[in-house]
């Protein structure tokens, strides 16, 4: 799981009053004015260059370190007495410019001017056809960590619940499939990706509006689940293949599907329309983007409908009966095959929806996006108790909140470690999970 591209939207409190913006001088102008004074690195070696000017209230900051990297190339540059810097870069169109905040004077920081950037001191520079680009940062007085701990904590919990609900959609599906068929389905990750990729194809490639694309993607996912069951899992069940074998088949299926996505969509990240919606402040410093709010509402509505279905309807009750004891359910006249078919359709549909929501949350669609959260989903399911639908939901929200809040205490590239570590520890003391029953661990 690549945590770097897993960006959350978060708004920084601009309480440490922003008093100055960097003077946005045009690159050409500043160079014409004082060409020889800028601290220049590798300028003669490469044709392309990135230039910038670090100033606070039009006072130049000297000795600020910047790192420019991309495509295996990395170079460090310090600003001169006029706050200028310039680096030559090799061919390639994207570079990352990182301003080392520790080299700024005390009480000064890079300010996030948009409001949804965790690391305003890191920027992407695109080299245009002119071969040169300007990269400036907003520098202002303020604490480097501008949000109070409590506000951050609340914000993370809100985000965590959102992430958890999304995980829950995927986890309920895995749990239902496990409960009714005994299969730990590793290919569930690819059912998540399938939903997102279908939404992408319909909305971007075909250009249909999002409100048609997403329901259509969910429908296609449901169809995908049905056809997987009909073409693969049902024949294997009839053949009497053991559950461990089935699990390894699902691993093979997961690999095959994952690389099939890569085959057709390539290795890059693509965005669904509307993934850059504005933030809406809620209370305190907590804000959520519009898409995140909609996604939360959708998750809750779907989960509530699902819960009603599972508890109240006849087929829902039959599902629970099959989960409990398939032979007994079959003996009392329940059509187990039909229940399993419905479960596969539902699981795939919810996984597809989770994929669309995950695409907005990450944000972006990649061939291995489902695999990135598969272990978190498994952690959630195991925490809640394998085979229990509501346990999966509880586990998901715990995992979601844990992942989001843990980065307050541990480095953010280790936030999945916290969740997976808790999974292992819980299994030590309560192997059946929170809502599971003892006999399931065997």
């Amino acid at each position, binding site marked *: *799981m690549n945590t770097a591209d897993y960006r959350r939207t978060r708004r920084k409190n601009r309480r440490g009053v922003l008093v100055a913006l960097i003077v946005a001088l045009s690159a050409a102008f500043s160079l014409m004015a004082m060409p020889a004074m800028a601290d220049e690195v590798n300028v003669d070696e490469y044709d392309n260059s990135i230039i910038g000017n670090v100033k606070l209230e039009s006072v130049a900051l000297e000795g600020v370190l910047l790192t420019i990297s991309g495509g295996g190339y990395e170079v460090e540059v310090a600003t001169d007495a006029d706050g200028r810097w310039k680096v030559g870069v090799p061919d390639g169109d994207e570079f990352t410019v990182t301003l080392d905040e520790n080299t700024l004077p005390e009480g000064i920081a890079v300010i996030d001017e948009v409001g949804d950037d965790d690391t305003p001191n890191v920027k992407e520079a695109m080299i245009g056809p002119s071969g040169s680009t300007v990269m400036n940062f907003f520098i202002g007085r303020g604490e480097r960590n501008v949000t109070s701990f409590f506000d951050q904590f609340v914000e993370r919990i809100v985000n965590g619940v959102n992430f958890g609900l999304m995980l829950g959609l995927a986890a309920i599906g895995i749990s239902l499939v496990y409960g009714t068929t005994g299969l*730990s389905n590793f290919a569930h990750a690819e059912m998540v990706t399938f939903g997102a990729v279908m939404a992408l194809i319909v909305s971007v490639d075909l250009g249909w509006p999002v409100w048609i694309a997403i329901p259509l993607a969910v429908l296609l996912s449901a169809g995908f689940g049905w056809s997987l069951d009909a073409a693969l899992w049902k024949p*294997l069940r009839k*053949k009497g*293949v*053991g*559950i*461990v*074998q089935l*699990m*390894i*088949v699902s*691993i*093979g*299926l*997961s*690999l*095959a*599907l*994952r*690389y*099939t996505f*890569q*085959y057709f969509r*390539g290795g890059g990240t693509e965005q669904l329309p509307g993934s850059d919606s504005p933030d809406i402040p809620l209370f305190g410093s907590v804000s959520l983007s519009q898409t995140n709010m909609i996604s939360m509402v959708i998750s809750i509505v779907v989960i509530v409908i699902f819960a009603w279905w599972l508890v109240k309807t006849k087929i829902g009750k039959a599902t629970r009966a099959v989960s409990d004891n398939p032979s007994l359910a079959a003996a009392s006249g329940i059509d187990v095959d039909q229940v399993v078919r419905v479960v596969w359709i539902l699981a795939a549909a919810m996984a597809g929806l989770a994929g669309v929501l995950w695409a907005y949350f990450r944000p972006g669609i990649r061939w291995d996006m489902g*695999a990135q959260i598969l*272990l978190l989903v*498994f*952690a959630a399911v*195991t925490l809640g108790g*394998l085979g229990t639908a509501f346990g999966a939901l509880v586990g998901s929200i715990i995992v979601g909140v844990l992942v989001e809040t843990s980065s307050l205490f541990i*480095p953010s*590239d*280790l936030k*999945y*470690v916290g969740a*997976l*570590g808790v*999974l*292992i*520890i819980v*299994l*030590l003391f309560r*192997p059946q999970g929170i809502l599971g029953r003892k006999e399931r*661990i*065997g």
Partner: protein
Amino acid sequence: MDILQILSNTGSSLIAPATIGYALAALGLAMHFGFTGLLNMGMAAFMAIGAYGYAISILTFGFPWWGGMLVGVGGSLVFALILGIPTLRLRGDYLAIVTIAAAEVVRLLFLTTTFDKYTGSADGLSGYHESFRAFNPIPDGTYGFGPWEYNANGWWVRIFGITILALAAFILWAVMRSPWGRVIKGIREDEDAVRALGKNVFSYKLQSLMLGGVFGAMGGIIYALPASVNPGVYVTSLTFFVYTALLLGGAATIFGPIIGSVIFWGVQTLLSNLLPAMVNVGLLPFMTTTQSQTVRFILVGVALMLLVIYRPQGILGNKKELTFVK
């Protein structure tokens, strides 16, 4: 399309360090999965611990090469203990999920920038060859014929790797025909029956996990020996690929894992050379060269499914010997 070059690359891959590394890891999995019935999905972590243990102890602490290998192997023993004590009481599929999670934890710990000083985070580690190459008894020069032509260092890595692999295969063969091995197979067939005989099943499983883990760690070291330690290698897919190699050869056999790894890498190298070449001469008009590199991974997945469904005992396995726990 240069058929000779393609065949030469394929032939060369048959004894490549990566192949030997896979074979060792697959032997470890044969111990875990084939003989004991433990569904260890965390083999990538054992390999990572071996490779990082080796590289870090040389680069950071200045150990000689054999000291680095001992650290890697020792690390895998400790990991097996930490992993085994909480998880070995769990049933098959639970164990799979927990071991895969533990492997991911290990990978993220090696990948994080927090320990960049020791692990090199995303860049990995390299430049630890001096001590191992100083021990090379082969005089400088190029030896061999046809596809198998390497310099002294190339041969030293391969001969060392093949020696370790032969040793591991011998150890596995020897322990599996001992009384200890019979108890291990008994655990795979029926844990409760073995427990009823008064054996400490948990302790046997833990010993199996440790022995197989050592094989995995050595595999990781051999894999990293000629070049570098790259954190992108030790992903969960690595475990799945090693499983494919294992199931191809036969999970409950001694030579199956080795043959499986050789076939796995032979076919992988053949396809990775042949398919782009076929695209370039216009034989596969519907795909690009990039796509043709993805096809072989799709085929791994399909091969894994077909193997498990139609020939779960692998090429060398005996159908009567049950290789899948119920």
